[in-house]
Structures are given as structure tokens and as C-alpha cells.
């Protein structure tokens, strides 16, 4: 079970990440996109999912990542991501509830370039009972 004190807690990203052209091109190609100048709209998940996993797997938070399924996902895109962007992420556990024995956690991750908020993502993850 999730440690209730984790709700509302914000976790800074560990490392800055630099987006490469190769990453954008590879992601785009998989979905059949032949334009590689900016990232596809869901590309930010590549940056944020590992953050969510790291946070929820932290022993002080206490979720069982091996039983996690993705419930829903939202992106607010303030500008396109391009190669050379250097980001850090800050994640907040915004909501937590238990329904039918499943734990349902919503994590917001802000993808920041310096002080510029480039993308906000919300991932709702369900830990199956």
C-alpha cells in the first residue's frame, strides 16, 4: 500500500536529460511519422514514465510497481519538444484512492527547461489487487 504521507509530495527529477534527435526520430518512426523536426505529442512519456516508476518504487512510497497498469494519461503541451532540449522533471503525487482493492494513483510530472514549463503530464496508475 502507498504511504499516505506521499500524497501531495513533490519529487524533483534526479538528472537533467537532454533530448537527442535520434530519440525523436526513433519514437516517430515507430508510429509511422516521417517528420522528425519536433517530437510527437506523446513523446514526453519517454521522459516522465521512468520518473513515475522511480518515485513509486521508492521504499518510502511503497507501491508494488510489478502490478501497475496504466489507467489514463493526459498531456498539456505548451510548446513542442525539439532535439537539444534539456529538461528536468518534477513529479507530484496528486491523488490516491483505493477502489475494489486496487490502488489508484495520479502523478503529475512537470517537464521543465530552466523555468519554462514545456509539458505537463498526468499519469493515473492502477496497482491491481
Amino acid at each position, binding site marked *: 500500500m502507498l504511504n499516505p504521507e506521499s500524497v501531495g509530495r513533490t519529487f524533483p527529477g534526479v538528472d537533467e536529460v537532454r533530448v537527442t534527435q535520434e*530519440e525523436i526520430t*526513433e*519514437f516517430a*518512426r*515507430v*508510429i*509511422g*511519422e516521417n*517528420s522528425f523536426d*519536433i*517530437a*510527437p*505529442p*506523446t513523446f514526453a*512519456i*519517454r521522459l516522465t*514514465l*521512468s520518473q513515475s516508476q522511480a518515485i513509486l518504487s521508492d521504499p518510502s512510497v511503497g507501491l508494488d510497481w*510489478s*502490478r501497475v*497498469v*496504466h*489507467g*489514463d*494519461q*493526459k*498531456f*498539456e*503541451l*505548451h510548446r*513542442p519538444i525539439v532535439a537539444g532540449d534539456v529538461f528536468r522533471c518534477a513529479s507530484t503525487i496528486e491523488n490516491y484512492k483505493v477502489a475494489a482493492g486496487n490502488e489508484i494513483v495520479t502523478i503529475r510530472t512537470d517537464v521543465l527547461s530552466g523555468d519554462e514549463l514545456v509539458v505537463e503530464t*498526468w499519469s493515473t496508475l492502477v496497482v*491491481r489487487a
Partner: protein
Amino acid sequence: MSRVGEVIPERSFIINRALLKAYADASGDQNPIHQSEDFAKSVGLPDVICHGMLTMALAGKFLTDFVGGSRNVTSFSSRFVKPVVVPAGTDVALLISGVVGSDLGDGRYQIDLTAMCNGVKVLGMAKAVASLNS
């Protein structure tokens, strides 16, 4: 002129095991439920399932083709309501269609998307906000 009600014609996207591997590498999501039949079954799934985010990424491709590129999309969200099961050696067809929903002003519209697989709706409340040329 408002474009509310405009239908975006259905397109088929093929999902197979090779695509799941390619998406795992491109996204960094190496969860074995998307690659290993044995693992998927060990956690109670019928077989390997597609990443929800791959289904959403394909819906995103459908969306960006219609709206003229990623830079015109400012919001995109979806629920993952049913898994897309991907048996070995099989090409699974994901059918995506859409409609221009409400007019949000300044050339921005809500776009509502539908994603079906084997007659079952796999994305719920899939919608985006995007700028369209009038």
C-alpha cells in the same frame, strides 16, 4: 467557418510483436507484459498486451496528420479501458476515427477520437485540443 462535426475518416494501424519491441525501445517502457507471453500470463493476462501508450501514440499520429502536425496540438488525453491483446505471429488491426467536437475559439477545437480493436473500444474519452485552419 466552424469545423464542428467534421468527421475524420477511419484508418487502420497494424500492431504486432515487432512493433511492441520497437516501441519498448523507443519509449523506454520495457515492461515484460508487452514482450513476454510467459510473463504476461503469469500476472493473469491472456497474452502479451500492447502498451496503452503505444495505442495512444498511434491515435496521436492519426490526430497530428489531421491537424497538420504536432505543433498544433496543445492537449491530448485518454483512458485505457481495454487491453489490446497481441498474440505471436499476428497483425492486430487498430481502427482509429475521429470527429471535430466543440469550437474552443481562436481556431482551436476539441477533437474526439475513437480507437477500436476486434470490435471493442480500447481507448476511453480520447480527446485532444488542437488548432485547425478555418
